[in-house]
Structure formats: structure tokens, C-alpha cells
């Protein structure tokens, strides 16, 4: 389980949180979301890029995201995702939960 290449594998459900975070600053298409996550995590977090799409569509179905077709930076048609009010609320809740969880895990791991 702790093999080298799996170091960046994401816990179930975390991906959705990261997508919400990526979209916090404004609408992005799927590729840009992946790019942002990889860059921001300094290439540590890696996903099989296709796996992003079921997650995006799930969020859209649940009403956390809104999708719209628009032109990309290289002028191709692309589907842009955007947080809904509902999605923003969820992002805040998830951030809080993650902060608590990671702090708690850090405490446990630092205990001697």
C-alpha cells in the first residue's frame, strides 16, 4: 500500500474537495483543474486524469457545480465548471473538516 508510486494517490472523496477548491477562484475547464491541482501540490498529488470527470459530473449532478460550454484559451470549445452557492458552502465545510482532520493526524504522528 505504501509503494513509492502510490504516494500521491488520493483518499476517496478528497478529490472532490480539491476540485471545489480549484474552482474557488473562478470557472475552469477540466484540464485546467487537473493542472492547477498538480502545480499547486508541486506534482505530489497525481490522479489518473480521466478520473477527474466522473467526480466533476457527480458534483454537477448534486448541484454543487454548474457547467457551461465556452471558448478555451486556445479558442477551442470547452466545458467550464463553476461553483454554485451550494458548492461554495460545501467547500467551506470541507476545508474546515480537512483542517481539523489533518491537524489531528499531525498531532498523533508527532507524539513520541
Amino acid at each position, binding site marked *: 500500500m505504501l509503494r513509492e508510486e502510490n504516494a500521491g494517490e488520493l483518499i476517496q472523496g478528497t478529490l472532490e474537495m480539491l476540485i471545489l477548491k480549484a474552482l474557488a477562484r473562478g470557472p475552469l*475547464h*477540466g*484540464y485546467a483543474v*487537473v493542472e492547477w491541482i498538480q502545480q499547486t501540490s508541486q506534482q505530489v498529488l497525481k490522479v*489518473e*486524469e*480521466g*478520473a477527474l*470527470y*466522473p467526480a466533476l*459530473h*457527480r458534483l*454537477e*449532478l*448534486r*448541484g*454543487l457545480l454548474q457547467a457551461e*460550454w465556452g471558448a*478555451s484559451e486556445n479558442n*477551442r*470549445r*470547452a*466545458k467550464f465548471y463553476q461553483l454554485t452557492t*451550494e458548492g461554495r458552502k460545501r467547500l467551506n465545510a470541507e476545508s474546515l473538516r480537512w483542517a481539523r482532520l489533518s491537524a489531528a493526524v499531525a498531532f498523533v504522528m508527532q507524539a513520541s
Partner: protein
Amino acid sequence: MAPALHQFLLRVKSLFRRRRMGREMAEELEFHQAMLRQRLLRQGIPAAEVDMAATRAFGNVTRWHERLCELWQFRTLENFLRDLSFSARLLRKSPGFTAVALLTLALGVGANTAVFSLINGLLLRPLPVPHGEELAVLRMEEGGSQPRYDFCTPFFRSLEARHDVFADVFAYNPDTLQVQGRSANENIHGVLVSGQFFRALQTAPLLGRYLTPEDDRRGGSAAGLAVVISEHFWESWFNRAPDVVGRKLVIANVPFTVVGVMPKRFIGADPTERPQIFAPLSADPIIDAPRNHIDDGTHAWWLTVGARLQPGITMAQANASLFTVSGPVLHEASDDSSFIVDEEKGHFHFAAEPGSRGFTYARLLFRRPLVAMFGMCGGILLLACLNLASLLMARGAARERELATRLAIGATRGRLIRQLLAESMLIATMGTAAGLAAAPLVSGALAALLTSGNSSLHFDTLLDTSLDLRVFGFAALIAVASAVLIGLVPALQATAGNVNDHIKDGQHARQPYERRKILPRLLLASEVALALVLVVSAGLLATSLVRLFKSGVGFDPRGVVNIAFSMDKQQLEGDALMRLYQQLGEGLSQQPGVKSVSFQFIVPLAHLHWTGRYSARGGSPEIFDMNSVGPNYFGTMRIPLFQGREFRWSDTKTSGLKIILNQSAAKLLFPGEEALGRLVTNVQEQSSYEVVAVVGDTKYRDMRAPAAPAGYVPMMQDEQKKPSLSAVVRVDGPQAPLASAARSLAARLAPSIPEPTLTTMDEVLNNSMSAERMMALLAVFFAGCALLVTAIGLYGTLAYATARRTNEIGIRMALGAQRTRVMAMVFWENALVAAAGSGAGLVAALFASRVLASFLYGTSPRDPWVLLGSVAALTIIASAASLLPALRAARIEPMAAIRYE
């Protein structure tokens, strides 16, 4: 909840744009890969390896695309739609089965919905007035078996003045008003209402104002007599004139001012009435002249009384209050101490009951027949469901192999049951829709049967049987219930058991387990039992009706026509009026085909009656049904004249009072003695009458009761100043020309009277048996349907079962079984079921017919002939239905059958 709803809506939306969604998903994924490839190229990966690297980074595109599609799919709904179309295909493939299924179900649903909408119209639908739950209907308890709903004026006026528990107390009496038209008076259906009537019903007038307590005074308010008219009457009489308020209507020769128009939806407090004119109660002495129900005090029981509760008062509180005021009101009402003592003996008291649905006597009359009919309809629907369930089960058995195969390759049982249920649901929905479409027609016809000119109700009585939300809800409930009933049992049965066995057994000859199948037999047997119950009920009701018809009424109703003349508002009276009647009679007797003409005050069996108390000298007084009749009455009616003579025109008031007794009355007053020529005394008036004839007994009040003692007085000696009599005309041949003849005669001889109305005696008799007739007709119809449905069920299941045994039968024959043996074997399979069902049905019928006992005339609910006949009918039908498959089985060619697989 919100995300789930959002998801649901999006998925529903996606259903309709599936292709576009698929394209967009592909495009989205393609865009990502294109961007990915560009990045990889920028990172310096050789062009030849870019595709592979992209796939490594992205994963399998097809797989992701499929995941997305799955995400958006509406699994349950899509499966359901697929099941539906599959079922529709199956049903189309067996049109015979489908037609039978739909027809039987449509019949069951249609009959149920029709009767339910009648019940809804008569028993359930609330009055269209605001806050109906505050309304109450008042009644009187006098210690009898039935409470009374008809009040006298003094009781009502005392109650009306009390406002401790009721905000308003009101009374009304449906009436026929003579309104002056262009040439003559016309009879218009209306209602007399008390002062608080409109206030209690809280419906605003369309125009003008409604009647208030000020209008309900003798002579009307300061502005004179007032009436309110219905929107319908405003249309038909005033052509919707905008200045109708303030115009005059001459009613009973007295001018009334129209002060308001009530909207169409307002029908007063009786759901079966559609009054055209609302007149004040106090105007009764004018409108009903020369009668006067108000001055008759405690002798006229003519009012229906309702009330609206004070806010916050419960029905229990109202009843408690009514109980305490009952004594004082009774004493206030009358000085007649014997009346008060009589009433107090019966613990007389007033009571209130919920009145949101208004009050109608039709409810008291028809509640039980309707409920009994509803029971029969329920039976036929249950029968249709049982029938379909057993047919589906037989078919399910034929599909066992298919289902087993699907189970074996991984379908869940739930999924298969859902699919089988989709089929039954499709049948149920279509059947219900067909039934619902036919229901208004049927219920309209039933309502017409029920209220057809029933003269105890009013002539333009209407029953609103239109479909409303309650009826639709009921139909939907039936549809769901029948779908589950039809489908669930066969579905469970078909998918139960060991997959392996089913696949192996499939079509094979080796099917010992079929013998053990008890459930289909149970279904069929209960179908037979239910059909027998229906047939027995129909047999009993029909026998009773026939006996009622045959029981005779004491006169010959065929070819007798009654023509009613309303003489109460014209000028002539006394002997002058009698001369007018004589002229009318002579005029009528000159019409073609007329054999004889006479007159009568009361048309027998038309729900009106008049009684008198008479005694012989020194004897005790006896109560007689009375009638006032013209010369040659008994000859015209063909009532046997045993002794004495008919009345003559010369039997006037000055020639000494005369009476004719029927046989029972003569025996009662003069047991064992000659009655002719003796004197009898009217107890109330203390006047003596000479008996001039003894005639045969006739039925007078009720078809069902034996003829009662009766007396006839000559119309020429009638106490009423202006009696309204009916001409009795015995006519040979067509009766229709008589109506126009009577109209022109009346227009010539008495121009001011309303058009005379014509009814045949046959109609009167039919109406007096309308409930019986309707029940018997329906029951016979249902019984016929039940027999047909049962035959189809027995035939269908046996045909399926036998077809599946083709192989086995072939082997039996190859081994030497004779054709007759084979035939008997197949035949017995059903005969056993039918015999068991008949046995159970006979027991059930004996219980069920007890409910019918009160509807039966001269027929025991255990009438052996009816029971025997029903069993015989069912046996014949069952045998015929079973014989066909048996014959087919006997014709099987062994070689063909064995090679069959």
C-alpha cells in the same frame, strides 16, 4: 433532500437529450486529451510516443466515457420504460388475452367508478357553500325506529329564535310555484326558505340581495313580497336582463318583486334539488293556496330544518342544548294535550347531526341499495382481477424456462418481478382508463334509473354524478390495487423455486410438480365461488322483482294514463269546478282510442297518501287510506265492483255524503255483515257517510305491502274548495296524442292553468319499484358478466396447462391411453376446481344473501330454486369452458406430440 431532488430533475432532463449528452461527454474528454498531448509534446516526448503517454496519464477513455454515461443514467426509470415496452410487445403478441384482460378490467373498473360516482354525488359530496363543516341538519327523535326530519312550523319558529348554539337556524320546503307566463300559468320548481336560510349558507348573490328575516314575514317586508331567482331562471325567463332586480313575477296570482339572482353553483341545502325560485316561507298561504301549512300548525310536517353552528360550538354541545330546549318548544307549539302526551311518551327531543353534505330524502331511500350495488361491483372487479391473475399465472408457467434462464444468467428476482409487474400495471392502467372513460355514461344512466320521474322527489331532480377529484382518486386506487392483485401473486409464483429444475423441466414431459400447484387452483376456485355468489344474488333479486310485478296491484295499470290538472290557482270552485272537470272528462273521452275517463285525487303508488278514521255505529275507529274519485272510476281502473254502484255526477254535496269501501275496509267495519247501505262515521268530522258500494282491494301506498283497508269519497263532495285532480284515462293504442289533446282542452276550458302533465300508470309502477328494478337489472348484468369472465378464466388456464402437457399426453397415448380417458383426465382437472368453488360459493352465497333479504319481496334468501338454478348455470358454463381444451387434448397425435420438443 435538495441535492437528491436536483439530481432527479437533471436525470429526467438527460433522458430527453441522451444523444447530445453523449456527444458532449466525448467532446469534453477529447478536449482534455488534446491539451494533454500538447503538454506532453512541450515536455519533449517524441511524437510517436505521445499517444501512449497520454493514455497512461489519462486512463482508458472508453471506460471513463462509460462511467459518465452511467452517472447520468436514470436506472429505475429506464428499466421501467424498457419493461413497459417489452410488456406492450408481449401483449400485442397475444391479442386474445389482451382483449379479455382489458375488457374484464374495464368492466370492473367502469362499474365500480360509476357506482362510486353515484355514491359520491348522493352521499359524499359536500354542499358548495363556505365553511360547510359548521352546518348541521336537525331531526326529531320520537322513540320510533326512524328519526323524523320533517318539522312543523311552530317547532321551527321556536328553534329559529334561539341563537345560543346556532348562529342561524333555517328551514326550507321544495315546492312547485305557479308563475304567470305569457298566456297561462307555468309550473316552476322552487323552494320556500326561511329568513336565515341565505345567511346560513353564506353564498353571495350574483345580482341584488338575498332574502333576509325581514322578507320572511306575512305580507313580506315594508317593500312588499320578495323572491330570489336562480341564474338559470334569470337566463331562461328574463334572458339575462341586467335590470331584472326590481322586476315583478306573478306567483299564484300575487305579484312578487325579484330582489336578487343566485349564482349557478348555489343549489340550496338539498343536493338533489335545483330550485329556480327562492320564495319566503311566510308566503306559503299565498303560494300553496288554498292550503296553508303555517296555520295548520302541528298538523303540517313539511319543513326540513338545518342550522349553522356558532363559532367554537361543537356538535355535542349543540345536541346537549337542543335536548334541554326540546320540552319547552314542544309545550310552546301546541295546546293539544293528547299530542304533547303522545310525544313525551316517545321521549321526544331534537337532535343535530353534521350537515356539510346537506339533506335529501333520496339519501335515506337509496343509501342501502347503493351500498349493496357497490358490493356487487366490488365483487365483479375482484372477479376480473382473480381471473387475470390466474390467466397470467398460467402464462407465467409457460414462460418458466425463459425466466429461469434469466435468473441463471444473473438477473435478480426483484428485477424479474418488477418486469412482470410492469405487465400487469400496463393492463391495469389501460383497463382503468377504458373503464373511466365509460363511467360517466354508466353513472348517468344509473342516476336516471334511480331518480326517473320519482314523484316523491321533484320532477327536475338532478343528481350531480360528474367525475371529481374524489372519483379519480378512487379510480387510481382501484388501478394500483388491481395491478398488484393481478401481478404480484403470479410474479412471485413464476420466479420462485429452483432455477435448475425449471431449466431442466421447461417443456418436458416430466412435470410431477404441476400436480402440487395449489395456488392457481385456489384462485380459480375462489373465482367460481365469487361468480356463484353474484349469480345467486342476481337470481334472488330478479325473482323478487318478477314476483313483485306479478303480485298485482288490484287494478289494471296497462293502458291507463294520468293527466294532472292544477286547479288550485284558477277562479272556479265547488260545483262550478266540478262542471269544468266534467267538461274536461267529456272532451277527453272523445279522443281517438279513449275507452273511459274518470278522475282521482291521489294517483295510487305515486308516494302520496291521505288517511281518514272511520267507524261503524258502536264500533272502534279504523284508519283507512282515502281517495276522492270521479264517476265511473272503478270501471276505468278495472277494479272489481262487488256490490252497489259507481259514483255519479249527481252525488253532490247536497245529495247526502256517500262512501265506497274496499273489501278489507268493509270486513273490518262490518265483520260478517252486509256493508252496502250502512252508515259509517268520519271520526274527526263526526259526519255520516252512506256506503254505496264495496269494491276490490288495491295497493295504494306501497307495492311491497299488501293492500290496506281503503275508502273512496266522490270528488263532487271533496272538502277542498279547489281540488287539483288527475284524469284517469283508459286508452287503447298510442298515448302520445292524448298529451296534446289534454293541453288544447285545458287551454280552451281553463286558460289560466299550467299545462297538464301526463304520466302513464306503467311509469308510476316502474318508479315505485325503481330501486328494486335498478338492483335487479344491474345484478343480472353483473351475473352475466361474472359467468362470462369465469368461463374465460377456466378455459384460458386449462388451455394453457393442457398445451404444456402436449408432450406428456402424447406419451400417454403412445403407451395406449384411450382418447376418452385423456379427455376425462383433462376435463376432471377443471371439474374438481369448479365443484370445490361451487361448494364454497354456495356457503358464501347463503351468508351474502342475508344482506339482500331486506330488498326481497316474497322471496326467501335461501330460495332453493334460485340456488339450484345458479349452481346449474355455473356448472353448465364451467363444463362448456372445460370441454374445449379436453377435446383438443383428445385430438393430439402421439407422434407429433413426442417429436414436438
